[in-house]
C-alpha cells in the first residue's frame, strides 16, 4: 500500500458553531435563573428549588452510571447524610447555610473510605451493596435521639428567617450548589479523565492495560456524586423543613434518579437535565394522583430501558448529530465540511 501524504492544515477543535451559540444563550439563561426569587413568588421559588435539586440528583446519578458505569441503588445514603449532617452541625451551633455546605463536604470525606470497600464490586453487587449501606446508615441515624430518632426532625434554626428570605436564600444556595457540581462534572468529562472514563466504560481491561487508572477514575466520580447527593439532601431539608429517616434514606430517591437519567439519556451531559425537567413537570401535573403516578413512572422506566435505552436526548443526538456542549473533539479539514471525530 503506498503511503499517502498527511492532509495539510487539519485542525482539531472542541467548539463548533452550534455549541458556541448554545453556550452563549445558556449564559444569558443562567443570569435569568439568578433573578428568580426577585421576580417570582415564594411558592414558585420553592418549586424552582425543587427543580434544581432534581437536576443536581440526576446529574450525579448519571455521573456514576453514565460516565462511570456504576449503577447505584443506594445514593440515598448520602442524601440522608447530607440532610442529617446539616441538622447535627446546626445542633452544634453552626449557621444553617454554612452547615449545608459543610455537610456536603462531610459526605465527600465519608465516601473516600467507603469507596475502598464498594468500588471492588461491579454491576449488581455494587448496586445492591450501596443499597445495603444506605439501609444500614438509615437505621443507625434512626437510633440517635438528638437527631429525632425514627420520628424525624426539622431545622428550627431556619425559622429565625422570614419565609421569603429563607426561600430566596435556599434557592440561591441551591442554584450555586447545582451550578458548582454541574461545572465540576463538565470540566471532569472534558478533561483527560473524561476520556479515560469513556475508555473504562467501553472496555475496562483494555483501558487498564493501557495504563488508565480505572479505580482512581471511578473513585473521583464516586466522591463527586457523594458530595452532590449530600448537597441535594441538605437543600431538601432547607426546602421542605422536615425530614425523617425512612423517607430521606428511602429507595424512592433512586427511583426518581433512575427515571430522570433513563428518560433524559444516560451517559450524556444534557440528558439528565432534560430528564429532571420532565420529571418536575410530571410531578407538578400528576404528583397528587398517588398510585397511578408511580405506576406510570415505573412503567415509563421499563419502557425506556427496553425500547429507548438512549433516552430522549441520546436518541435525538444520534438522529440529528447535535452537540450542544463542547465536550468532544471535531476535526476541521480545510476546504471540506467539518467532519466529526468520536466524542
Amino acid at each position, binding site marked *: 500500500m503506498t503511503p499517502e501524504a498527511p492532509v495539510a492544515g487539519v485542525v482539531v477543535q472542541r467548539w463548533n458553531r452550534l455549541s458556541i451559540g448554545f453556550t452563549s444563550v445558556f449564559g444569558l439563561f443562567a443570569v435569568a435563573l439568578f433573578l428568580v426569587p426577585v421576580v417570582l413568588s415564594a411558592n414558585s421559588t420553592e418549586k424552582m428549588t425543587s427543580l434544581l435539586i432534581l437536576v443536581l440528583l440526576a446529574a450525579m446519578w448519571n455521573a456514576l*452510571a453514565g460516565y462511570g*458505569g456504576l*449503577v447505584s*441503588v443506594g445514593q440515598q445514603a448520602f442524601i440522608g447524610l447530607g440532610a442529617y449532617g446539616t441538622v447535627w452541625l446546626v445542633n452544634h451551633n453552626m449557621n444553617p447555610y454554612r452547615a449545608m455546605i459543610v455537610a456536603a463536604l462531610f459526605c465527600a470525606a465519608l465516601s473516600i473510605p467507603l469507596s475502598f*470497600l464498594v468500588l*471492588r*464490586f*461491579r*454491576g*449488581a*453487587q455494587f*448496586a*445492591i*451493596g450501596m*443499597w*445495603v*449501606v444506605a*439501609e*444500614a446508615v438509615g*437505621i*443507625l441515624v434512626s*437510633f440517635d435521639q438528638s437527631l429525632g430518632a425514627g420520628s424525624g426532625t426539622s431545622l428550627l434554626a431556619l425559622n429565625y428567617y422570614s419565609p421569603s428570605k429563607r426561600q430566596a436564600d435556599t434557592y440561591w444556595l441551591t442554584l450555586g450548589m447545582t451550578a458548582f457540581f454541574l461545572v465540576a462534572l463538565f470540566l471532569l468529562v472534558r478533561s483527560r479523565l473524561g476520556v479515560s472514563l469513556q475508555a473504562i466504560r467501553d472496555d475496562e481491561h483494555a483501558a487498564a492495560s493501557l495504563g488508565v487508572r480505572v479505580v482512581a477514575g471511578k473513585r473521583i466520580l464516586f466522591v463527586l456524586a457523594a458530595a452532590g447527593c449530600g448537597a441535594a439532601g441538605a437543600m431538601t431539608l432547607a426546602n421542605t423543613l422536615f425530614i425523617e429517616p425512612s423517607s430521606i434514606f428511602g*429507595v424512592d430517591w*433512586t*427511583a426518581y434518579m*433512575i427515571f430522570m437519567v*433513563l428518560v433524559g439519556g*444516560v451517559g450524556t451531559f444534557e440528558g439528565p437535565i432534560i430528564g429532571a425537567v420532565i420529571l418536575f413537570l410530571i410531578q407538578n401535573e400528576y404528583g397528587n394522583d398517588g*398510585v*397511578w403516578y*408511580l*405506576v406510570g*413512572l*415505573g*412503567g*415509563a*422506566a*421499563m419502557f425506556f*430501558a*427496553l425500547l429507548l*435505552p438512549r433516552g430522549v436526548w441520546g436518541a435525538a443526538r444520534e438522529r440529528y448529530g447535535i452537540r450542544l456542549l463542547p465536550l468532544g473533539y471535531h476535526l476541521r479539514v480545510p476546504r471540506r465540511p467539518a467532519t466529526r471525530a468520536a466524542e
Partner: protein
Amino acid sequence: MGWVNAVVQGVLLGGVYALFACGLALMFGVMRIINLAHGDVAVLGAYLVLVVLDHWNVSPFLAIVPVLPVMLIIGYVFQRAVLERSLRSGVLVPLLTTFGLSIVIQNLLLEKFSPDVRSLGGQAGSVVTASWQITSQISISAIGALTLGVAVAILGGLQLFLAKTPAGRRMRATAQDPDTAELVGIDSRAVYARATAIAVAIAAIGGLFLAVRSTFDPFAGPTQLIFAFEAVVIGGLGSLWGTLAGGIVLGVAQTIGEQINPEYSALAGHLVFLVVLASPRGGIFRLRGASA
C-alpha cells in the same frame, strides 16, 4: 442461655431467607440477572394466596397450589416478553427494567389491596402456634421447622433437577455458555424462561411462608430482596447449598443482634453482609468451574 435459643431461632429464620435467596440465586446463576423485583414477586404470590383464600376456606398451604402454576406462567411470559430483550443490552438494562417492575408491582398491589398490613397466620391453623420445648430456654416452633424443611426440600429438589435431569443439564450448559448451547441444539431462550418461571414460583412459596410467619403489605418486597441478596452473597454462590448456609448465617446474625437490642436485628445482618463483602472471598459470584 438466651443466646443458644437465639442461634436456634436464627437457624430456623434462615429457612425463610434461603427460600427467598433460592430463586434470586437461580436467576443470577443462569442469566446473570439480579431481579430487583424478586421480593415484590414474592409478595405478589402472598396476595394471590390471599385472593384464593377469599373464595375458598382452606389452609394457606393448600391455597398455594393453584397459585403456583399461575406464578410459573407469569415468570415464563415475563422472561420472554420483557427480560429477554433487556439481556441483549448489557448490564445496566436488566437492573433498570426490574427496578421499574418493582415499583409497578408495589403500586398496583397498593391500588388493589390497600396499604393494610396483613397476615395469613390466622388461617394457617395450629402449625403457627405449635412448638416443641427442647429445654427450658430453647423451643423450636413448628412453623420454623416447617419453613426450614421446605427450604431444604426445594433446594435439594432444584439441585437434583440441575444435576440429573436432561432439562437441568441443558440449563447448566446454557448458564455456562449460551452461545454454544444454541449450537448444540438447546433453545436458550426457552431455558431462560424456564429458569425465571421456576424462580418466580419459588419466590411465591417464600412469600407464602413470610405471610404465614409474620406480616406483609404491598411494600414488603424490597426488604425481602435485600435479605435474599445478603443471604446469596454470604453463602458465596458456590452451589445452591451455599444459599442455605447464607440464609442461616444471616438469620443467626439477625437473631443475635436482636438479643442485644431488638432494634439491632436488621442492622446486624447488614454488618455481617458488609464484612463478608469486604473479605477477600466475598462478593465473588462464580458458578462452579465457570472458567475453561
